[in-house]
């Protein structure tokens, strides 16, 4: 049954593959051709795959959604409520297609825009990086994304440049029953500094699929803050792969917030490729009803003196199901690695479900690695404390639930985004409690 469904899905997928555009640069054509070949050889992931054993994505096989082809007629006034309040460099993609009329770049000396346009002048630097980090050989959805690669964001930060305003990559879904392919490549040269916000939103309520691949390369001493916000509609499917490559003494901070989608999966791979690289990766999943949200992270320490910190939190209500799999690799050469990981989970109903799995693979002997996982409900002593200060049981529950999530959101440095997310958490916790 499953096999047949997958077969239909693949057939339909192959039929919907775009004709290879003739104006494509030949290396890109080749990258896509290889991915297209690869699709035929790959199996649709199922619960039998170790990497997918908690996450049933079989509903996806019934949805042979083709890529969206339409050009957007969205106006600025339709979407300005989604903009940051701070000055920002805004790149807007609608259903995976770049919308220059909705975008706005304010910082000079920034190479930023969509791939097809920038390909004209920057083909060689794009070639050096595109598809080099997000390896598709063993990842079905990355392969698919690469095969359909036509549009996407390219951001390149010059050596020793600090980008004053955050870059807001706003991905908007407006069409039902399509697959939106999003691609983002961020290349930060030596000593540069940048803040990137990846924002996924829906302007309609029907089902669709987002397939997003992000690649980030930080050169020596570069710094990036990367905030990823997934707030798609509750019928959507969100499949994302993000790969980060860290060079010597570079620093990567990320906050991943998952609120939306019926089924979502984020694979985040961070490779500390050289000495003294640092990463701090935090996540918040806030889901209810029948949502399923899966976060798979892998922090790979390859060289000495690396530092990684990770805190992942889930707030789960209704019959929702969250999955966290946090892998930490410490390779034989990676002596003096300092790593900590914590997974904290709050279950708000008896049907809520979490699978959390720390996975440490340590091959070096002189390292410091700490990890812990907790699953629990709101603490009755904490509730009593707040009640004794006059708060009702509901208010006390809301405040504690909110606080649990706010601890992660507070790590976002862009204040309007932080406030908006705090409000989103507050709204959702109130919805949860008011039933």
């Amino acid at each position, binding site marked *: 049954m499953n096999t047949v469904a997958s077969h239909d899905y693949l057939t339909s997928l192959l039929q919907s593959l775009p004709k290879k555009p003739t104006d494509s640069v030949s290396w890109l054509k080749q990258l896509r051709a290889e991915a297209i070949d690869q699709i035929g050889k790959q199996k649709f992931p199922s619960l039998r795959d170790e990497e997918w054993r908690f996450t049933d994505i079989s509903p996806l096989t019934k949805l042979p959604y083709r890529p969206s082809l339409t050009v957007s007629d969205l106006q600025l006034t339709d979407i300005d409520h989604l903009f940051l309040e701070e000055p920002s460099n805004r790149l807007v993609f609608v259903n995976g297609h770049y919308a220059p009329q909705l975008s706005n770049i304010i910082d000079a000396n920034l190479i930023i825009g969509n791939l097809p346009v920038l390909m004209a002048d920057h083909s060689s630097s794009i070639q050096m990086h595109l598809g080099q980090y997000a390896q598709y050989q063993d990842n079905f959805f990355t392969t698919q994304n690469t095969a359909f690669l036509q549009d996407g964001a390219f951001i390149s930060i010059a050596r020793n440049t600090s980008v004053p305003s955050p870059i807001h990559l706003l991905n908007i879904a407006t069409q039902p029953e399509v697959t939106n392919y999003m691609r983002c490549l961020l290349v930060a040269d030596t000593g540069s500094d940048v803040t990137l916000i990846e924002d996924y939103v829906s302007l309609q309520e029907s089902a669709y699929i987002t397939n997003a691949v992000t690649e980030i390369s930080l050169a020596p001493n570069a710094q990036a803050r990367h905030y990823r916000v997934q707030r798609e509609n509750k019928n959507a499917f969100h499949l994302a792969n993000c790969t980060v490559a860290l060079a010597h003494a570079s620093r990567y901070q990320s906050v991943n917030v998952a609120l939306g989608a019926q089924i979502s999966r984020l694979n985040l791979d961070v490779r500390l490729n050289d000495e003294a690289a640092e990463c701090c990766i935090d996540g918040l999943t806030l889901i209810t009803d029948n949502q399923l949200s899966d976060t798979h992270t892998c922090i790979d320490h390859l060289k000495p003196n690396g530092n990684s910190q990770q805190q992942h939190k889930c707030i789960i209500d209704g019959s929702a199901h969250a999955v966290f799999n946090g892998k930490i690799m410490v390779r034989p050469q990676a002596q003096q690695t300092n790593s900590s990981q914590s997974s904290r989970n709050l279950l708000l109903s008896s049907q809520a479900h979490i699978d959390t799995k720390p996975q440490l693979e340590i091959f070096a002997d002189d390292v410091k690695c700490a990890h812990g996982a907790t699953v629990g409900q709101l603490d009755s002593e904490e509730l009593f404390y707040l009640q004794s*200060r*006059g*708060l009702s049981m509901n208010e006390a529950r809301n405040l504690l639930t909110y606080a649990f999530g706010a601890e992660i959101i507070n790590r976002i440095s862009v204040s309007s985004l932080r406030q908006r997310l705090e409000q989103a958490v507050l709204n959702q916790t109130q919805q949860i409690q008011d039933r």
Partner: protein
Amino acid sequence: MINKNSKTILDVRELHANIHGTEILKGINLTVRSGEIHAIMGLNGSGKSTLAKVLAGHSDYEVTGGSVKLDDQDILELVPEERARAGVFLAFQYPIEIPGVANSQFLRLAYNTVQSQRGKEELDPLEFDDFVREKMKLLEMNPDFLDRSVNEGFSGGEKKRNEILQMALLEPKLSILDETDSGLDIDALKIVANGVNQITNENNATILVTHYQRLLDYIVPDYVHVMEAGRIIKTGGKELALQLETHGYDWVSSGNQTNAGVTT
């Protein structure tokens, strides 16, 4: 201060309470009038902290008999937040930490919730900021406390000062201070005691639950009650605390004196 004509704020009669089926309070009688400060002393396990929690309405404890009246209103049927709004305040022995919520937000939320329930005006963030900063001076608190998460990373002394700050903001009729002196060095103890002394007046009342006499050097009680095995076994004036300090709890122990309460 003792004034026999003051009105009764708290009246506890034959109070019995269980936790998980075990009886902890075995018939407490206690009358507290406005303007008075009462100390409840006793060894660990005597039931004094349980009494504090039962008065505040902790749901782990089941009241099996007796009555508790605040200003002639029976409060045993009230949930904790209703008791708080009616004027009961419990300063916790171990205040909880709430990472992710700024102290200023929390204090304003508690203040405005209680204010609105009492039919008084709520304060907006700016008005509240002025108001709370004034109160913080009572406790020699650094204004930085407002921006930090509630109690997170606070030292023992800072947490206790934050409790007394809440007492100052909420203006309770009856404050119950549960082991407020524990974990405090002498300087912090003096600051906390000074704060409490400035908040107490002829219209409110305070119960100090404490193991040691030390706190009572700085907050002088009008009455001292000694608890043992869920009962008040002796009641006296402030000199009783000093006698306990000298002779130890054995001196009053084993039910040889069962004068309970201070009713006249």
